[in-house]
Structure formats: structure tokens, C-alpha cells
């Protein structure tokens, strides 16, 4: 069984008592809620919304939903990799803000756009690298380290912008904020590419497999000769790179960069990953699972807006649906 589908621990499988023969057919017919719970909730949500609001299934609205989840989706891939390795990155949102602001301010000062983009990616990567080094080199939990980084980055972003937004991102708005072909938003294509690459990275590369191993049991991984510290540095750096891509995408979509633009994205990305089936304890989950969580949040928000549900009721509905999605994934 692959980690993506729910179990990375082969020892667990070996030690599990053999199932009795009569139960096999019943087992085959039973839905694996751990894997498909979110999918079921998502499909039910789509059906209900489509009944009450037929416009939900129009091409333009589907494009809306996908473009609305693009940034969160990309960022959730960064969070997923870190969560699988047993870590957590609370600084992804503020990384998005500072990287976006870096690109925006450089553009404002007449620096060519491609240089701005590389500077933003460089900034995001450096933040990821620093996170990785801090997490790898001491025993403090990544939660507190990345919380410190979140605060630090927010402060820097606010300081350099003076709290005011940068309201022009030039061609970035037409490239990443526009459509690429057949009316498909570029951000959606980018999301798809990032999800595929993340899935391949986790499933097919030694570093990706190592992330599962460390997240599953760090001590056993260490005793097996896995370079724990180096792997953590790579993983957080990679999360930084992906955060940089999310920053450019968000700046392009909004045609703006702002110090508080990433506020809340860190918790949303964690929520989306966990709802999708990538647990906080690490060692399990995957890109496609997390994407389900992102989709569920996006679909719920879109459908509530389409049905003109008031803000307070939206929060209640969102909370209930998220709880249902988590509860149906039993054996988590």
C-alpha cells in the first residue's frame, strides 16, 4: 500500500492478524473512508449545490472555483511535503507576503519583471532554507520556529511597505492573473503542474520517500542511516520555493502585493492538507489527497457565495462541512 493511499508502515501490515475468509467480500464492498471520505463529501457537496444553484456547474464557474483555489492549492503542496516529513510550516503565508512584496517593490522601482520574479523566488527559497536549518539544527519544534519566522517576516513586509499595498505588478497580472488557452486560467495550469510535480516528488524520488520515512518514525529512520538533518533542510527549502511560486501567482491574480496578503494562508493550507487526508503526525498523505481538501474548501466557499448565504451562516456551514469531512475519515 502506498503512503498516498493510507499506510506507509509495512511492519504494521505484516503484524496485522490475517483477515478471516468470509469477511473479504464485505471488505471489498466497504468504502475506505480514510482515503475517500473527503471525496465523498466533496461529491455530495457538488451535487447539492448543483441542484440549488444550476450555474454552479457552468464552465465559467468551474474556472472560477479552480482559479480561486490555485494559490491555496500551490501553498498546500508546500505544506503537504513538510507535514509528511513530520514537520509544520507556519511561515508559508508570511513568506508569500514578503516574497510578493519583494517583487512588487522592485517592479515599482523600475527593475525588469523577470528580475523581480527571480528575486521573489530567491527570497522565498532563502526563507525556506533558514527554516530548514533552524529546524534541523535544534530540538525546538518546527511549530515554534516557524511561528517565530511568521512574525519576523510579517514585520519585515510591513516595514518595507509602510503598510501600503503595491498596486501594480505589470505583466505578471496578465500572465499569471490571466488565461493561457481555451479560457483556462494560467494559475490553474500552474497549480496542476505543481500538484503533479509534488506527487511525483513524493512517490518517485529518494528524497520524497525519505520524507515519508522521517515523518513515520524519525528515530527508526536515523538508525537506518537516513540523513535526517539534511533531508529536513531540503524539505523546508523546497517548501520555500513552492511558497515563492504561490507568492508570484497571488500577486499576479490580485495585480498587487501587500504585507498582510498572506494572513491566514498558513492555517488554511494546514487545514486543506489535513482535511484531504495528510495528517499532522506525518508519514502519510500525498499531493492528490491534499488537493481534495483544497477543492472541498474552494467548492464550499464558492457555493455559499453563489447561494448568497450570509457571512455568519457561511462560517457555520464551512465549519460543519469541514468537521463532517474529517469525521468521515475514520481510522485517521
Amino acid at each position, binding site marked *: 500500500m502506498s503512503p498516498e493511499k493510507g499506510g506507509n508502515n509495512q511492519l504494521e501490515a505484516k503484524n496485522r492478524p490475517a483477515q478471516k475468509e468470509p469477511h473479504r467480500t464485505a471488505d471489498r464492498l466497504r468504502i475506505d473512508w480514510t482515503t475517500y471520505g473527503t471525496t465523498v463529501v466533496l461529491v455530495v457537496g457538488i451535487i447539492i449545490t448543483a441542484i440549488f*444553484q444550476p*450555474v454552479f456547474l*457552468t464552465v*465559467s*464557474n468551474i474556472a*472560477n472555483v479552480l*482559479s*480561486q483555489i490555485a*494559490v491555496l492549492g500551490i501553498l498546500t503542496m508546500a505544506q503537504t511535503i513538510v507535514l509528511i516529513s513530520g514537520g509544520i510550516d507556519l511561515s508559508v503565508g508570511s513568506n508569500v507576503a514578503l516574497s510578493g512584496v519583494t517583487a512588487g517593490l522592485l517592479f515599482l522601482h523600475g527593475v525588469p519583471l523577470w528580475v523581480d520574479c527571480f528575486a521573489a523566488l530567491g527570497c522565498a527559497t532563502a526563507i525556506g532554507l533558514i527554516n530548514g*536549518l*533552524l529546524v534541523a*539544527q*535544534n*530540538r*525546538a*519544534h518546527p511549530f*515554534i*520556529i516557524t*511561528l*517565530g*519566522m511568521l*512574525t*519576523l517576516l*510579517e*514585520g*519585515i513586509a*510591513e*516595514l518595507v511597505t*509602510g*503598510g*501600503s*499595498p503595491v*498596486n501594480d505588478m505589470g505583466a505578471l497580472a496578465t500572465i499569471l*492573473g*490571466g488565461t493561457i488557452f481555451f479560457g483556462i486560467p494560467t494559475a490553474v495550469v500552474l497549480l496542476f503542474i505543481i500538484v503533479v510535480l509534488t506527487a511525483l516528488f513524493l512517490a518517485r524520488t529518494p528524497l520524497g520517500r525519505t520524507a515519508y520515512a522521517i515523518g513515520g518514525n524519525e528515530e527508526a529512520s536515523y538508525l537506518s542511516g537516513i540523513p535526517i538533518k539534511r533531508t529536513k533542510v531540503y524539505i523546508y527549502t523546497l517548501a520555500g520555493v513552492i511558497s515563492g511560486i504561490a507568492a508570484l501567482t*497571488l500577486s499576479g*491574480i*490580485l*495585480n*498587487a502585493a*501587500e*504585507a*498582510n*496578503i498572506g*494572513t491566514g494562508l498558513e492555517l488554511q493550507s494546514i487545514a486543506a492538507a489535513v482535511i484531504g487526508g495528510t495528517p499532522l503526525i506525518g508519514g502519510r498523505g500525498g499531493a492528490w489527497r491534499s488537493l481534495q481538501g483544497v477543492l472541498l474548501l474552494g467548492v464550499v*466557499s*464558492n457555493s*455559499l*457565495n*453563489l*447561494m*448568497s*448565504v*450570509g*457571512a*455568519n451562516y*457561511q462560517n457555520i456551514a464551512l465549519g460543519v462541512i469541514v468537521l463532517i469531512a474529517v469525521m468521515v475519515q475514520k481510522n485517521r
Partner: protein
Amino acid sequence: MHSQLTIGLSKKCKLACSMPARLLSLLLAGFFAASAASSGAEATPAAGGKILTIAFMRPGPDPYYQDGQNGAVMAAPSLGAKVVTYFSNNSQSQELANVEDAISKQVDGILMYAVSLSAESADVAKANAAHVPIFLLYGYDKSLLPKVAGFEQVNLIEYGKEVGTWLAKHLAEGKVAIITGLLGRGDAEAYAEGFKNGLADNKQLTVVAQVPGDWNRQKAQHAAQDLITAHPDLKGLYVENEDMAIGAILALKRAGKLSQVKVVSCNGAPYGLEAIGNGEIQASNTCSPALEAVMGLRILTGVIGHTTESGHLYYSLTVFVTKDNIKDANPWVPDQTGIEKFLSLPLLKPVADSDLP
């Protein structure tokens, strides 16, 4: 900026015995200390011969609060005061800790934009217990008024109503939608209520949806996308601040609907005025946070110096702006001349507190 956040973080880091995390904390402390130094200014002593120390507290990183803070800092020396700034990071507990910190530093008064209604009550109780006058920019709870130096805020219902009235006159018929700020504090609710009251002047207009934007540009952009999908024939859109309005306009532009939908808003931020100038926002009710904070500081220092009576409600100066009178809006980011103009304006007159919730 002596943020308690730094101190809180340091404690956590000590628990974790983590050197790099301590280093981060030191960096944060250095950063905030640098901000505090920059906010200090040379003040001329007031009539009593003492330079007043005023704690200015802002709840979040939004430009509105930042520019309010800048206005207070710039005006303070002329009022015989110096301003120490605090940041609450949208946290009620952080805000209360900041109030305690300011009290322990023996400030002469506190001028604040509170995080929330419940935080306000706790802040006022702390300040009252320490006999430190506290002035609330946007006090939402009428019962607190006798306990504070004063409240200053826009007339919440009227602020939205003027926008609704304008749209009722300038849009013959059709569907109208509202993108609100974050509900829960009373202001976003009151703006929407006022807007609907004003819109009621034209019976041919119908509010078909009221969805949240939470003062967040990205969320407002998504909301506008969804609104135009659900109501392709939408004719009017009220977005409760211009930061969100810019996001909504982008969504309408990309959907090719901007020419069809009249967008109206509130605030008067520099980018909002620019959008009014190029016709993307049709009208906006503007209020300069810098002017608001300068007025608040003037009243507070007056209360401390016993020249102004405490416990009154004041309405901030607002200017309703369309393309024709953009220059009438008071600037959010004034220069020193602008601050001097704010200082020379007549002090606000107290109003009845009957409009408060």
C-alpha cells in the same frame, strides 16, 4: 514599538531552550525597538511643562491603522506629546498585554483602535483601574462611553447610507450586491445596514446578495467572481472598503462586466482615489485615518490637561467623493503641512451617543 509579542515569543523560546529561536526573538526585539525609536519625536512641553507620553495601539497591519498611527506620531510634538506605538497583531490577548505594558511604563494616556468589542471592555477596565485616560478610535459599546476619554468614529450608519443614497440616485434599476468586511465588531454590519437604508430611496433597486469579503482583497475578488456568476445582470456593487473594491474590480474587469456594474465603496485610500479618478469606482465615502488619529490625540491630550471634558462621542470628518471632487478628500498619508492643517481645524464637537449600538 514595544510589542508584547516579542516578550511572549521570548518566553516560549526559553521553554524550548532553542538558540536559533532565541536569535529570532532577539531579531524581533531589535526590529520592534528600531520601530519605536523611529516613532519617537522631539516634543515641546505642554502648558504644564511636561511632555506627555501617549501609547498608540493599532490592531492589525492594515494601511488604515498604519496611516492613523503615522498621523498621530507626526502631530504629537505640536501637542506637547510623544507617541509610543504598540501592535496587537489582531489578537485580543496581545492587545490587553500591550495595555498592561503601557500602564506599567506609566504612559499619560492611551489612544487605540481596538481589535474587538470584547477586547475594548477589558482594555478600558485595565486603564480605568490604573487611572490612565483611554480614548477609543471606534468605540462600539455605548456602556463604555462614561469610562473613557471619548470615542471617535465615523457615523457608522450614515457613512454607508450616503453611499446607498448616491447609488439610488445614479442607478435607475436593477440588482445590487454588497461585499461586507469582517462581521462581529459592528462596523461592517452598520455600513451594510446604512447602505440598504439609503438604497431604499429607489424602489427599482434590489439587494440580491450580501457576501463576506472580510476586509481581504483576495476574498473580495473571489466574492465578486461568484456574484457575477450567480447574477450576470448585476448593476451595482457596494464594497465596504476600497482595498476589497480593487480586488472586486479586477474580477469584474476579467469577466468583462466592469462597464455594466457601478462600484461604490468607502475609505478614500490613495489607491481608492486613483480608482475613482479613472472611473473604476464611481463614488466613495472617505475618511482620513491620519486626520481621525490627530483629532483623537487632540481630544485625549485635552482630557489629560483638563481642557476637554471626557466621556463624549465624536464623529470623524468624512467627505463623499466622486470623480468631480477627488481633491476634497483629506489625505491618508499627509506631509507635515497636511498635519499642520489637521491641527488647525476646529476641534470636533461632541454628538449625542444615540446612534451607538
